[in-house]
């Protein structure tokens, strides 16, 4: 699996946000660190594991937390941003509110 660089990883994240009607976190420093984390995960695992989740050891086991993770749509609907705060809803971004850690929906009974 060819390695990815920061530009390729940022392009991936930008494409995801464009396709879903989201925006990237406007905090450039925070977003840069997440893009760097996504890149690191691609280059060591071969897929874009969420930078704020740890691997269970295989792509199959991690499939729910490959970016954009399976719960990101619900998290963005409820909190305005995804678990790692890479993606914002447009409304949340416009509000100027700061993201914060949110519960990992995978652990709740009602996903």
């Amino acid at each position, binding site marked *: 699996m060819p390695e990815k660089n920061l530009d390729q990883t940022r392009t991936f994240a930008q494409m995801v946000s464009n396709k879903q009607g989201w925006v990237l976190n406007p905090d450039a420093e*925070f977003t840069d*660190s*997440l893009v*760097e*984390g*996504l890149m*690191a*995960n691609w280059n060591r695992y071969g897929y874009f594991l969420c*930078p*704020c*989740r*740890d*691997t269970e*050891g295989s792509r199959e086991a991690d499939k729910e937390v490959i970016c954009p993770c399976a719960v990101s749509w619900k998290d963005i609907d409820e909190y305005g941003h995804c678990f*790692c*705060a*890479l993606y914002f809803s447009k409304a949340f971004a416009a509000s100027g509110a700061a993201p*914060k*850690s*949110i*519960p*990992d929906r995978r*652990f709740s009974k009602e996903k």
Partner: protein
Amino acid sequence: MLDTLTYTEVDGPRKDRQITVYALSTCGFCKRAISFLNDKGFSYRYIYMDQIPLETKNQAKKALKERFKDDVAFPFAVIDEDKHLVGFIEPDWVNTLGVGRS
């Protein structure tokens, strides 16, 4: 089991709390949590759980879950052996560690 892990020690002027942070090297909120501790001058130790062997990491997560009866997400901080924080929500860290806001 948690005592067998290799932690990175950070020295700061505040040594009144025992703080251990279980983090991911790739995680934005983990970086925020560590910056918070640095800014407030705490001594603490941390470990990047994505940089240790998978089996060791899974054992550590199991130990944390059993000890604190909570799911393990990152950052996961243990304060004075008996309290814990999951994620980084600054007011929670301020309250638990007893510090003023910056």
